[in-house]
């Protein structure tokens, strides 16, 4: 089996979540979702990726409001959101918790309510980040999935609860329960998140990397240090 960085694995999971999507937008500071999107585009050339803060060749010629207007028009079907806190009802908090101040809500309050498929993504998987109830809801909505550095959850719209779909290599259901601050459903036997294929890794490193390095230079230098 090929060796790979955890970031590469997460990007592969994201690319798989994007099946059937037509147009994903990627907000500020989201290099792993960006890798996932460009990987998806490598599989489906008709899939469109818009990087909000692309440094060169920025697709938005109506200024920074164009992303939000596009979403309002229904022309974006996937967006990614993170959170200093994410709770069991899918709410995210980007503002403040436990006396700490975070950067702020960005466009989340709007995008979560408007874009049909919002993928929640946060690498840190702990009771600090995954909480029963956020202290401040920057945004509420119905997520398509929640991906962390340890596991993948789906969202059950009817129950308004997460369901554990798979754990990443090295994690068990019990550990995930231990590290998750909110309750969630799962089967007794939770599968392991499928590893990146050789083809996926090759596409990331040959096709996706240059695009990422131009827009997320620190991330690229960290994940692919020897290139």
């Amino acid at each position, binding site marked *: 089996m090929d060796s790979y960085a955890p970031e590469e694995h997460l990007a592969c999971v994201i690319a798989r979540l994007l099946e059937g999507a037509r147009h994903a937008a990627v907000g*500020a*500071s989201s290099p792993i979702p960006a890798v996932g999107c460009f990987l998806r585009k490598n599989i489906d050339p008709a899939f469109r990726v818009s990087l909000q*803060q692309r*440094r*060169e060749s*920025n697709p*938005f*010629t*109506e*200024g*920074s*409001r164009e992303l*939000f207007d596009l*979403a*309002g028009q229904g022309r974006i079907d996937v967006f990614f959101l993170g959170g200093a806190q994410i709770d069991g009802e899918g*709410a995210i908090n*980007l*503002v*403040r918790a436990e*006396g*700490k*101040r*975070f*950067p*702020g*809500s*960005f*466009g*989340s*309050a*709007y*995008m*979560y*309510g*408007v874009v049909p498929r919002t993928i929640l993504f946060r690498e840190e998987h702990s009771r600090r980040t995954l909480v029963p109830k956020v202290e*401040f*809801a*920057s*945004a*509420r*909505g119905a997520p398509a999935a929640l991906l962390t550095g340890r596991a993948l959850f789906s969202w059950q719209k009817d129950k308004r609860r997460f369901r554990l779909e798979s754990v990443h290599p090295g994690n068990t259901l019990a550990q995930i329960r231990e590290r998750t601050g909110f309750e969630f459903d799962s089967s007794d036997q939770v599968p392991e998140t499928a590893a990146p294929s050789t083809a996926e890794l090759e596409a990331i490193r040959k096709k996706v990397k240059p695009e990422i390095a131009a827009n*997320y*230079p*620190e*991330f690229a230098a960290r994940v692919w240090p020897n290139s």
Partner: protein
Amino acid sequence: MSGSAFLGNAEELAAQIPDGALLALPPDYSLVAMEVVRALIRKKARGLRLLGVPILGLSADLLIGAGCVAEVETSAVSLGEAGLAPRFTDAVEKKSLLVRDATCPAIHCALQAAEKGVPFMPLAGIGGSDLVKERKDWKVQGDVVLVPAIRPDVALFHARWADEAGNVWVGRRRELATVAHASRLNLVTFEEKKPGDMLDDELLAPGVISSIYISALAHAPRGAWPLGMPGLYGADDLHVSQYAKAARTREGFLKYLEEWILTPRKSTSPA
């Protein structure tokens, strides 16, 4: 109204910004007039109320750390890949800075309302956010939230070119046009002066903000440094990341100020 005034330098432009002004600033990726930001710190500006269009970054963190800012309305303050904005975070946690949290499209709407001279603009989709509870000035009306107009006293930004007619070219950064339309005073630094009138040139005109809106201008080559100017120079990521580390402590921040902003010979960017 009678055309834009060319001033001598960034210091003279900073002198146009009164203490206490509602000052609109673009995010780090959108042509920040950093040389004027540094001049504001040097002139010891006080009580500024910053508006993020729609978010803020390095410029706000510097002004906040230097004690120039009383309050901030923004959708976020962030140094992007370099992480949290340390002086902003510290000031809020110590309750020495008032923050009116917003969300990006609400700020765009508020500026578009001012651009049109209407009292509010409707915004859909944000009903689930606690922002709506917190912002008493946002009114829920059926499926939309009515966001009141924001008319900044001053908008400050950097442009690729200015021309003899006082027009400026900002390329695809059209949010700068919106904020220029919405603001009472528009102060602009520019990289280079072009002869003639860019509105005569079909290719240049689409990226122009016309002199109708521009109050005063000053030449400031590499004036966005350490942020970037697309097509001319990139952001100095290393410098921003060093700032982010230094400014984690008050001492480190003051040392940065001394070294990069207050000491005249180092106050301009490396060429």
